[in-house]
């Protein structure tokens, strides 16, 4: 039994260690600094070459509907450029070591440009740098803005701005006071850090709104629902929910509904996840702030410019837009699955349904 005691002691020691690791601070100034960096121009002359072009795509993961839609945007845009002859896709399945190997394998296949979204930014920074040194430009698609030398340009979506728009709308719908909870994606991801930073910045202007609990639902509807069920036990009143990710918002709303407390709560807008859009259409409230899957398309457009030696900036923001509940009919597709995204993809490029 002494061994077991020792095991528990070491576990407790590690738990204590964890408490000392503080969160990354995001703030408005950082977001502004990022915008300034994104506006800088890139010298593309070193990458200029004639077609035909071979496009390599290194996906950090593909088992996620947003990513699948972004990839279909890559294919669609590639089909609009006759000089692009080939699109090669690899999937690292959330394993950064495999993503490094994937990128090495792609470089061996003489790709002319690399479009990627990372499992983890810093883990692939070195191999990306090697790609750029070897003359293959790299474009980051759909994540937050990256300023590493291994990334030539970004088609980025600002999680900060998304978070801020969602938070401001929630404050307005709440009437500026009440107790709220925040449902965020995977802890530690840029998305979670920036969304929380934006929420806290907005909260500073609304002293009567109290953030009572911050939760991480990992973009998983089932998990968001389970966490919310426990929160409903912990807090007798919850006036509002900050949840920018639609697939989690549905799980949260369902838990409130089943507890008979949906009427008391104000949901924030979610993104243009079809299941959430259906909820908004049905209940006529909350709305949506888009997290556009066309970031993939934007990345290809930037990539082609780079290869032709035309000027590009370090980053091109793919802006989020607010969709009011009244306008939701233009976006929701009642006949499509929940795990689906409002987009302008032509039918032949939609994922299989």
């Amino acid at each position: 039994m002494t061994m077991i005691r020792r095991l528990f002691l070491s576990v407790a020691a590690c738990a204590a260690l964890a408490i000392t690791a503080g969160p990354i601070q995001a703030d408005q100034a950082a977001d502004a600094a990022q915008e300034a960096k994104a506006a800088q121009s890139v010298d593309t002359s070193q990458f200029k070459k004639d077609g035909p072009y071979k496009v390599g795509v290194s996906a950090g993961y593909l088992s996620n509907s947003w990513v699948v839609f972004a990839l279909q945007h890559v294919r669609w845009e590639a089909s609009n450029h006759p000089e692009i002859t080939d699109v090669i896709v690899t999937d690292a399945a959330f394993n950064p070591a495999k993503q490094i190997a994937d990128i090495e394998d792609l470089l061996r296949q003489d790709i002319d440009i690399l479009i990627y979204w990372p499992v983890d930014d810093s883990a692939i920074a070195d191999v990306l740098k090697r790609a750029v040194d070897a003359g293959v430009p790299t474009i980051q698609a759909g994540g937050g803005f990256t300023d590493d030398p291994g990334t030539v340009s970004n088609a980025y979506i600002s999680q900060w701005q998304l978070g801020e728009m969602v938070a401001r709308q929630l404050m307005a719908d709440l009437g500026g006071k009440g107790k709220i909870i925040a449902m965020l994606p995977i802890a530690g991801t840029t998305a979670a850090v920036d969304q929380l930073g934006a929420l806290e910045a907005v909260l500073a202007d609304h002293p009567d709104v109290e953030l009572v609990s911050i939760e991480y639902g990992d973009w998983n509807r089932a998990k968001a629902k389970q966490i919310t069920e426990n929160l409903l036990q912990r807090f007798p009143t919850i006036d509002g929910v900050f949840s920018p990710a639609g697939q989690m918002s549905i799980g949260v709303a369902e838990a409130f509904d089943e507890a008979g407390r949906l009427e008391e709560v104000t949901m924030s807008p979610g993104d243009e996840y079809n299941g959430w859009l259906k909820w908004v259409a049905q209940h006529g409230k909350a709305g949506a702030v888009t997290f556009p899957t066309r970031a993939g398309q934007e990345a290809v457009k930037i990539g082609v410019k780079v290869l032709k030696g035309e000027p590009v900036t370090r980053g091109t923001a793919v802006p989020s837009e607010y969709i009011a509940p009244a306008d939701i009919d233009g976006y929701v597709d009642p006949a499509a699955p929940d795990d689906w995204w409002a987009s302008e993809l032509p039918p032949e490029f939609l994922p299989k349904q």
Partner: protein
Amino acid sequence: MAVARLSTGLDLERAGIWLLLATAVAASALTIPEFRDPANLANILRQSSVLGILAIGQTFVIAVGMIDLSVGMIAGLVVVLACWILGGDPELTLVAVALMLALGSAIGLLNGLLVNRLKLHPLILTFAMLSVLQGVIFTITDRSVGRASPTLQAIANGSLLGFPLSAILLLAVLALFHVVFSHSRFGYHLIAVGGNAEGARRAGVDVKRVRLACFVISGFLAALAGLLLAGRLGTGYPLAGSGLELDAIVAVVLGGTALAGGRGSVLRSVGGVIALTIISNVLNLLEVSAFVQLFVKGLIVIVAIIVNQPPRERP
């Protein structure tokens, strides 16, 4: 397999992996021009080194009749802690390396002690340890932390005369542990224990100590693999080790070592690792869809263990 053995007299257990490797290399080299590229071959060696070191450790544990599912998470924990230390001060490389190797050995020691004292099935114990370590890693950090030191990164990614440094490290580890495994007293003991623990005990072998030593070796090499992985990633990514334990076991089994214990070869296990890396490399070069690759990987696991199942017990 039994048929092949009878009809040709060829020992597939010993020669199978080398035949598979030779066939895979020849077929790929003939049909895929990119494969022959020396840089690609160097990549394959570099990509094999982390798993190769893990597979060497796993061979010891499997040959002694045990198994160790915690190695992936040990490597993961080492990646996080090493980068956390080195992010603060890259000068501490030697200290961090020593600390991490000690940590890995200690977890291996704990595994071995628990198996010996509590008489737990090693699968259950190390599976539970995997879960505990994963929880510990996530409790320490839920995001990438720190930075690997330039030294570690150079070892993981650098080359000497065009030959990857990490592959040289793998070869050195392989040579050392091959001697321990196949040409030492301890090696004979561990094969005896794996083949027939009761018989070995009667012959005067300290069964518990041999098992304990195998778990310590496994933990030590898992930590070494973790350090190399830290150098390769450059950052302390919390999930870096997940799934590596299964890959290591598959490589060992591909190398002709049955899970029942009593036999094995570290050379063939590393052969198994290189075969796996080549398969992944070729599937990438052939542009096989990532989803199909996952399916193929599962099939390889199933086929490998069926082909290399332990021999029927003699009544």
